[in-house]
């Protein structure tokens, strides 16, 4: 299929932006200035200021001398890239492939998109009118090559839409600058009297190359479509992505639900064809006022179960605020995995469908309460109690080493051991009594000590000598003494857990 590109040029991007933000500045001569070396230089000029003779690169002091009441906004040059990226994001509604262009422009790969708006003329008019409605001065052009679209959007005077194969004709009357060649090269050509592209384009290549250099020749070939050119899109489209544009802006819950259902069914069927299942999906709602609302869901195992996925989204519909209305929905499969019907591990349930239901339940819980709420533990080869287990995300990860049964561990374990007062006889004897939360417990039976060394390669500190204690009521506690017994200072005791 023949590639078609559209170039959009924001001639006065920064000044337009500040005027949208601060309408009081409209119709005033306005410039942006930034530091260049030791002085302030003008980096953006509004139309009004340009008419008064101020141009780019002029020192700010000179500009102030020409127009004393000049409005100056300083140090905002970094904004250009951000603004363009935001506008590029806005343009995603017209094509999935949008890239940034040199000299304040956007390049859109519109191959196969324009007919959805009723043809290229309508497509171009729609975009330009919308952008102008937002308050930006824009010019746009459509052509077979990125270079030609660039040239026509900047310098074109006749028609913004160049039919396939007519690039050269359209360029003939434009100045050499339109070829995106270096300023030096274009200056040279003009000095030689070659003021239009038509006057030198048919010259032998070798002659031209000698005059303007290899780089410029490459640019010319790209403009004419003799050499391929690529751009890097600001968002790489997902492999599985669906979009749904609405005729009228949608602002009701029902409408959003219908949109989600439609997108999900399309996404699921395309995933199913490849034997894939959805792990996480992103719904983007493009609001009419230019905002994009992102809603994401995740599942614990690959799924193409429509009703289940829809339930996950329906938990989040409340977060989608339609305001004036939503004109476009897109849904991407951000993460997807091989859909394997036999992947349910045996422990989930006796029959395969049981595991499915459990994972769907966990998805619902994760959707509402956050995935971090769901925890599963497996043993770790560490003696230190806090490190003896690890959290695992996956529900199917099998036991890699057995649970230890040789040592009794408390049913209730305090996250942080709490200090207790203890009276213990000579070293290494269990305490006789201890005081915890104001209650004194007489120790009747005791086991221990069980010495657990701190893993010195992981952290520094004292070892722990654990004792299992039973008080007069039969309540059982897990206490430890931190470090060695010493006669000089009292040793520190802690309570760490409660046995059943």
């Amino acid at each position, binding site marked *: 299929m023949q590639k078609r590109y559209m170039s959009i040029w924001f001639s006065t991007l920064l000044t337009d932006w500040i005027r949208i933000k601060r309408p009081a500045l409209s119709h005033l001569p306005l410039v942006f200035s930034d530091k260049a070396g030791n002085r302030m230089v003008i980096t953006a000029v509004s139309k009004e200021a340009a008419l008064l003779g101020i141009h780019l690169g002029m020192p700010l002091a000179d500009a102030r001398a020409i127009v004393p009441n000049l409005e100056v906004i300083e140090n905002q040059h970094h904004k250009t890239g951000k603004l363009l990226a935001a506008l590029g994001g806005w343009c995603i509604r017209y094509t999935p492939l949008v890239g940034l262009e040199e000299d304040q422009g956007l390049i859109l790969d519109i191959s196969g998109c324009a007919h959805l708006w009723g043809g290229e003329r309508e497509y171009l008019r729609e975009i330009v009118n919308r952008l102008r409605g937002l308050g930006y001065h824009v010019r746009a052009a459509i052509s077979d090559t990125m270079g030609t679209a660039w040239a026509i959007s900047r310098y074109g005077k006749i028609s913004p839409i160049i039919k396939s194969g007519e690039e050269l004709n359209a360029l003939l009357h434009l100045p050499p600058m339109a070829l995106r060649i270096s300023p030096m090269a274009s200056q040279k050509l003009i000095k030689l009297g070659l003021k239009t592209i038509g006057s030198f384009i048919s010259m032998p290549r070798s002659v031209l190359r000698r005059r303007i250099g290899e780089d410029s020749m490459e640019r010319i070939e790209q403009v004419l479509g003799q050499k391929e050119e690529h751009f890097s899109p600001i968002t790489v489209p997902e492999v599985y992505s669906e979009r749904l544009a609405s005729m009228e802006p949608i602002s009701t819950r029902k409408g959003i639900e219908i949109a989600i259902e439609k997108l999900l069914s399309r996404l699921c069927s395309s995933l199913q064809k490849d034997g894939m299942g959805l792990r996480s999906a992103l719904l983007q709602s493009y609001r009419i006022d230019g905002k994009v609302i992102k809603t994401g869901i995740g599942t614990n195992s690959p799924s193409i179960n429509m009703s289940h996925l829809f339930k996950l989204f329906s938990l989040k519909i409340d977060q989608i605020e339609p305001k004036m209305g939503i004109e476009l929905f897109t849904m991407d499969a951000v993460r997807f995995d091989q859909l394997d019907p036999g992947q349910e591990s*045996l*422990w*989930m*349930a*006796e029959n395969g*469908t*049981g*595991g499915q*239901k*459990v994972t*769907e*339940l*966990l998805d*619902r*819980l994760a959707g*509402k*309460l956050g995935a971090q*709420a*769901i*925890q*599963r*533990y*497996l*043993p770790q080869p560490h003696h230190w*109690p806090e490190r*003896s*287990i690890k959290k695992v995300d996956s*529900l199917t990860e099998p*036991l890699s080493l057995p*649970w*230890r*049964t040789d040592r*009794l*561990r*408390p*049913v*209730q*374990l*305090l*996250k942080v051991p709490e200090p207790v007062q203890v009276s213990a006889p000579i070293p290494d004897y269990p305490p006789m009594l201890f005081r915890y939360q104001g209650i004194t417990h007489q120790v*009747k*039976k*005791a*086991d221990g000590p069980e010495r657990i060394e701190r893993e010195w390669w992981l952290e520094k500190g004292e070892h722990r000598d654990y004792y*299992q204690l*039973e008080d*007069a*009521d*039969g*309540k*059982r506690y897990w206490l430890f003494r931190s470090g060695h017994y010493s006669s000089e200072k009292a040793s520190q005791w802690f309570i760490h*857990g*409660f*046995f*059943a």
Partner: protein
Amino acid sequence: MATVKKEIIGKLQEQILKLQGFKPERNAHATDFGLGIISTAFPGNIFPLAALHEFLATNLEDAAASGGFISALLAVLMKNNGVCLWISTQRKIFPPSLITFGLSPERIIFIDLQNERDVLWATEEALKCESLAAVVTELDEISFAQSRRLQLVIEKSRVTAFVIRKNAEKLSSTLAAARWRISAMPSVAIDGLPGLGFPRWHVELLKVKNGIPGNWIIAYAAGAFRPVTQVPFDGLKIRRAV
């Protein structure tokens, strides 16, 4: 003669239960928890599955004892594979300890939440899922209406729910099939050896629907409940039965 009388009494009891609106488990294949004489407290001598069981555990010691008792029950429930959900805020349960009670800790999915409302919501959602073996919930309070919501869900899904109530100050009545309190008892030394013996608990069945409340002492050793003895009501200092 005596056996005939017993049969007649048994039949009459069944009829009374029916009149009271108690429906025995449809596939009345009783799961044996090894609870011994405790089962006689339940209607039809069957531990009620697919029901709400309440455990009062106001302090950490009782919570540990209840945790042990519940784990032992869960181990039986999850014998034929299955998953269990443990829903709580500020969870202190230490998974590796549950292996002592015959439970595989990797088959428990812990849901750690921030507030009580989420816990109730998650419990209700979990109880809707019939593939779960059981759901354990740690809660401060549960009102009558909330317990009825859970009960209605349970009736559909037939999942057993264990609710550990951490706050018994404002004890409201609920629709629970049984209300338990498990507290620690001094252990008996093993073969006269020094040190700690097997855990022994004082099991109080404070309320049981269509059954007879009671008091027992039970020990847990080597993967089973060991000698279970009934305690006469005046034998122990009975706590205020709420």
